[in-house]
């Protein structure tokens, strides 16, 4: 089954290494994906949904409808995109009146339709449930023996009632996925806490946003983390730039799971973009 590869904004436009690492990792793992012309921002829930639920729904539905036109499920590499596209799909699937209203506008403006026939998946879910840990272990050429602090982020797992990916308080998917390439998962205080970027807080209340980030970084550092593993370019940005901004010499490289896998599978370094990070990746 092939996927429509949904890029979002922060991966392609701030951390393009995450985009290219995902492509080479998908190729290596045999995950088929296609690029769809004309996707937009998901649109980012923090601001868009906070401003106008209907705008969020219709722009999200357009993205979903574009993939549906190609007969494809959608794969995302960002919790924000997941928080939009999955949740938009969930709302529209469960509310016929809203779906009809959105579809009427989509049809008039674009000749598109959203029916809910296809799914939205997070790439970590695809790696875990479709590729599987065994295959990842087999393909691992270079063990990654680092103490890693896993950061799930919020919208991969929550709201868990609808997403049903894993337990929101004590998940194990990412632990299994990093251990598959030889990394050592370390427990740290408030592991499931938000990075501080979401909900529009980074843009509107930087001070508060950085307090959350600092709390997480301190907790990771106290547990002797050598590396942070994320599955979301926005959390990635928050920790990567956040460490530089806080200037407290944390020195914990921040890696999107796709970049860690790129290294583990021995894929060309020039496709991983890790030298573009603000917090140097000296491994």
């Amino acid at each position: 089954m092939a996927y429509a590869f949904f890029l979002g904004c922060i991966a392609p436009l701030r951390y393009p290494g995450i985009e290219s690492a995902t492509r080479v990792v998908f190729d290596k793992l045999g995950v088929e994906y296609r690029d769809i012309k004309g996707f937009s921002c998901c649109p980012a829930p923090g601001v868009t949904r906070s401003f106008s639920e209907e705008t969020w729904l219709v722009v999200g539905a357009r993205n979903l409808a574009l993939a549906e036109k190609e007969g494809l499920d959608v794969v995302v590499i960002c919790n924000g995109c997941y928080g939009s596209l999955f949740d938009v799909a969930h709302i529209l699937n469960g509310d016929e009146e809203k779906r009809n209203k959105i579809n009427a506008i989509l049809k008039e403006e674009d000749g598109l339709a959203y029916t809910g026939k296809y799914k939205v998946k997070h790439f970590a879910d695809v790696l875990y449930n479709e590729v599987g840990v065994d295959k990842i272990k087999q393909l691992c050429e270079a063990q990654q023996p680092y103490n890693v602090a896993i950061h799930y982020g919020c919208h991969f797992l929550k709201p868990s009632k609808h997403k049903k990916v894993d337990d929101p308080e004590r998940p194990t998917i990412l632990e299994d996925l990093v251990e598959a390439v030889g990394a050592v998962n370390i427990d740290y205080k408030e592991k499931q806490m938000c990075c501080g970027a979401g909900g529009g807080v980074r843009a509107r209340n930087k001070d508060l946003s950085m307090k959350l980030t600092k709390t997480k970084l301190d907790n990771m550092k106290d547990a002797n983390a050598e590396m942070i593993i994320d599955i979301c370019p926005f959390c990635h940005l928050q920790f990567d730039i956040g460490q530089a901004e806080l200037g407290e010499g944390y020195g914990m490289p921040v890696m999107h799971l796709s970049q860690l896998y790129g290294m583990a599978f021995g894929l060309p370094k020039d496709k991983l973009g890790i030298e573009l990070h603000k917090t140097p990746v000296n491994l």
Partner: protein
Amino acid sequence: MSEFIEPNTEFSKEVAKRAGNTFNLCFQCGTCTGSCASGYFTAFRTRKVVRMAQLGLPTVLESDDLWACTTCYTCYERCPRGVDIPEIIFAIRNMAVEKGYMGEAHRKTAGFLLKTGHMVPINDEIKKTRQHLGLEEVPDTTLANPKALSSVQRLMMAMHFDELIGTKEE
């Protein structure tokens, strides 16, 4: 002496229309507040927002605290009564924005979305970086497809998003 505040049922009804009426299930236990990382650092009290929705206290619209929520959903996961707290916050934020209460940084980002279909701008440096990585210089999204961009813009304007972000200064 504390002042008697007349509940505004219209406000409660409006929140219910947008986010459902689960706020009526709230029995003010405070689990949400105790779970909220943003509340730990600020005066933002999740329980109070839910209370204001119940009682219909529209002063919540003007509060800066409303924007301290990162939408992490921890409160929602832990609430023993199944109150859709983040949905309630989104609904109240929508109502605040309709009254013109919006942060300038947010308005700017919203403007990017309307102008480019993305929330993050593209520039020459990023184009060069993308090229080095072997990616298309400009991703094949609305950024490279004017027709796709204009359809996103039309959809947004059908929802009056342009008017919304043009409203009065905060």
